[in-house]
């Protein structure tokens, strides 16, 4: 009897470890398999390239995590990033200084995040519809500003953010790590972070415990907007150009990364480092597929499938997406 109970509890333990660390283990297996099977994968050039892609998606996905943590989500992150890029690009090409242009770019995310937050948290409209609408308004506006043309004449010095290196490490990777560290400390160690966690767990009980649910949800959208703006700046700097459709692909990929994150270690909860694992997983998978010469449309299909799988594994799809 006790032996039976023991093996049972052992099995439960193994399952729970597999459940908790399953995504990390799969990521390691993926990296290992690609390194052995695909020589181009393990070249220094490719690794630097990976770090770059990792950085951009992580920045966008970190913002999305802030919203998802509270059961909200933000479909406008790509559009906010693109608008930021255009604002910065316009200012720079009109000869304004780099710090001033960047500050103006961050204002875009701040303002758009506030609007999203007011609509969703204070007017209690659906996050899905509202952020889809603001995304469409922003994208339309960037098209109108640029007449659909890309901005090319950005100063080379602006490129340092996206293309520069510090002690051999890409600067955008450093920016991303600093941002993620700050956000995860914010979530884990501040009163607002704790309140956000409570709202994510049960908004009604949070309200009945004296938490200002609306304000905290607004903060989530503002953080998402700010991250998107940082993402937009790093993105335009990386390619030294800005256009209206930049960043659109980050919405779906961010969702994927966040849900993989919610199936990592703290099952059912969105958290910054989980999202980072999700980003690594997606970026490595896509990179490997490209090296294997799998056509691009299949990678989109696979990303969609991974998102679905992650939603199932995290077990929270139903709860969050019901809103």
């Amino acid at each position, binding site marked *: 009897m006790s032996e039976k109970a023991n093996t049972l509890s052992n099995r439960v333990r193994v399952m729970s470890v597999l459940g908790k660390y399953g995504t990390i283990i799969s990521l390691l297996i993926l990296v290992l398999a690609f390194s052995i099977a695909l020589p181009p994968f393990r070249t220094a050039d490719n690794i630097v390239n990976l770090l770059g892609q990792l950085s951009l998606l992580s920045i966008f996905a970190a913002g999305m995590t802030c919203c998802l943590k509270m059961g909200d989500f933000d479909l406008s992150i790509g559009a906010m990033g693109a608008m930021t890029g255009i604002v910065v690009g316009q200012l720079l090409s009109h000869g304004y200084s780099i710090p001033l242009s960047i500050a103006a770019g961050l204002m875009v995310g701040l303002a758009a995040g506030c609007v999203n937050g007011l609509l969703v948290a204070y007017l209690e409209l659906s996050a899905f519809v509202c952020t889809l609408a603001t995304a469409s308004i922003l994208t339309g506006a960037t098209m109108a500003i640029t007449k659909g043309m890309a901005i090319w004449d950005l100063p080379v010095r602006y490129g340092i953010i996206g293309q520069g290196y510090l002690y051999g490490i890409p600067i955008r990777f450093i920016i991303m790590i600093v941002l993620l560290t700050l956000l995860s400390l914010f979530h884990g160690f501040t009163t607002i972070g704790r309140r956000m966690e409570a709202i994510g*767990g049960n908004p009604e009980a949070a309200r*009945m415990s*004296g938490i200002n649910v609306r304000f905290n949800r607004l903060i989530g959208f503002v953080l998402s907007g700010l991250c998107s703006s940082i993402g937009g700046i790093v993105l335009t700097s990386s390619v030294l150009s800005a256009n209206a459709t930049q960043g659109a692909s980050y919405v779906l990929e961010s969702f994927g990364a966040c849900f993989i994150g919610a199936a990592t270690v703290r099952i059912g909860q969105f958290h910054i480092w989980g999202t980072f694992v999700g980003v690594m997983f997606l970026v490595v998978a896509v990179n490997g597929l490209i090296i294997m010469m799998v056509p691009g449309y299949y990678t989109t299909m696979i990303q969609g499938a991974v998102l679905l799988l992650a939603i199932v594994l995290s077990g929270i799809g139903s709860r969050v997406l019901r809103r």
Partner: protein
Amino acid sequence: MDTISKTPFFEAKGIVKDFPGQRALDDVDFDVRAGEVHALIGENGAGKSTLIKIIAGLYKADRGSIFIDGKECSIASPKDSQNLGLAFIHQELNIIPTLSVAENILLPNYPRNRFNIVTKSAMVKAVKSIPYVLNIDADLTTPAGQLPVIQQWKAIINRALAVNSRIIFMDEPTSSLTHEEVNELFKSIEHLRSAGKAIVYVSHRMEEVFRVADRVTVIRDARKVGTAEVAGMEPQQLYKMMLGRELRDIYPQKNKVQDTVLLEVNNLSRDNILHNVSFKLHAGEILGIAGLVGSGRTVLARLIFGAMRKDGGEIKVNGKVAAFSNPMDAIEHKIALVPEDRRKQGLILSMDSKKNITLASLKKLLHGSFLPILSRHKEKNVAHQYYERTKVKASGLNQCVADLSGGNQQKVVLSKWLCSEAHVLIFDEPTRGIDVGAKFAIYEMIADLARQGTGIILISSDLTEVAGLAHRVIVLDGGEIKTILDGDQVDLKTITSLLLAS
């Protein structure tokens, strides 16, 4: 009463059921006589619903046997129990809301006319021809979901009559009914009894036993305490059977109320639910609120706590008018609410005890006064203090509250408010769904808080609880204060008769 035969036709003998880690039923006997109303009562977790589930064929007993008309029979599935003439009505009524009342009653055997077609008129006729059918106050062709709960109940009872059931088991039937509906249900039960049907009435409300039952069986801690005739029994005796101690030992000594008024409510109103409610709450006072479902008791609590907007009236805290538009303001003013539904409104189930306890007082956990940064060290110390004080039983501060028992969850909710240093604590159904041990512990804590000068508003449908703890009792009826009982008037009989008089 003369229709009751003295010999049981249904008997369950020596029923034993083990769940992993605990025995749910230990050698329990239970019998039913034709034409009797037999109340099966016990605290939450005593084992009464396990027994019912075994009889229904939902669980399999580990030992024991069931006899009907003296013949042993095996019940392995709900189908078996139905064939033996047993019907079960659960709290969540098994009604299909989109089907008509008649269709619900006749499920699954619909009458057909000579063309083998199911027609509405044939259905209605079939329902009317059920022996002893209860009259339903509605068109039998309306969707059942549109009916008031009591009419749905009657429809389900009719379904049991349609298959000619001999015993109808009702599980906590009054928990979702209003006062008038309870009366109507009791009339229906009377009707069933006169038709020779036996009714097993499962409840944890004692006062109902005295209103409807002929006999009562009490289950406590998985064992049968005894079966007795209700006629000539005193409530105190039944209490002792149910709780295992004398009523006067259950409730702590009442303290002396102080003169300071902590909270004053004047003409508080909310459209059709609450009308001009006024009262004062003193320091050290336990103010009971007795009322049935729909009397406005929960709304009153939510209005004071700012969880709902009031339409009129004022609230004064320590003599000053305070306008709360949300719970945040109320908590600022040291008012707290232990809500009716702790899982939905009281706890963040995904967080641990530590985080739940400190949730309403995060300011206490700050590193310094400059940045809103939490100190893990302070968090642990603060949470631990209240965790110890309310004697939460868990594997530790880090255990997820979703995994705690109802009683321990309630202690965590209470800890949260002790941590916020509330001066006025509103308890809405504080002991619903928790085990006896935790119940007594919560009584002790409520009395203790009052002794220390906290003002307490106690809302409960367990009237003995209200009578046992409160210094004064507001009887709430239809959103209005019917009367406020004070001193010697606060006793179970007075409150019960006031509530049930209509």
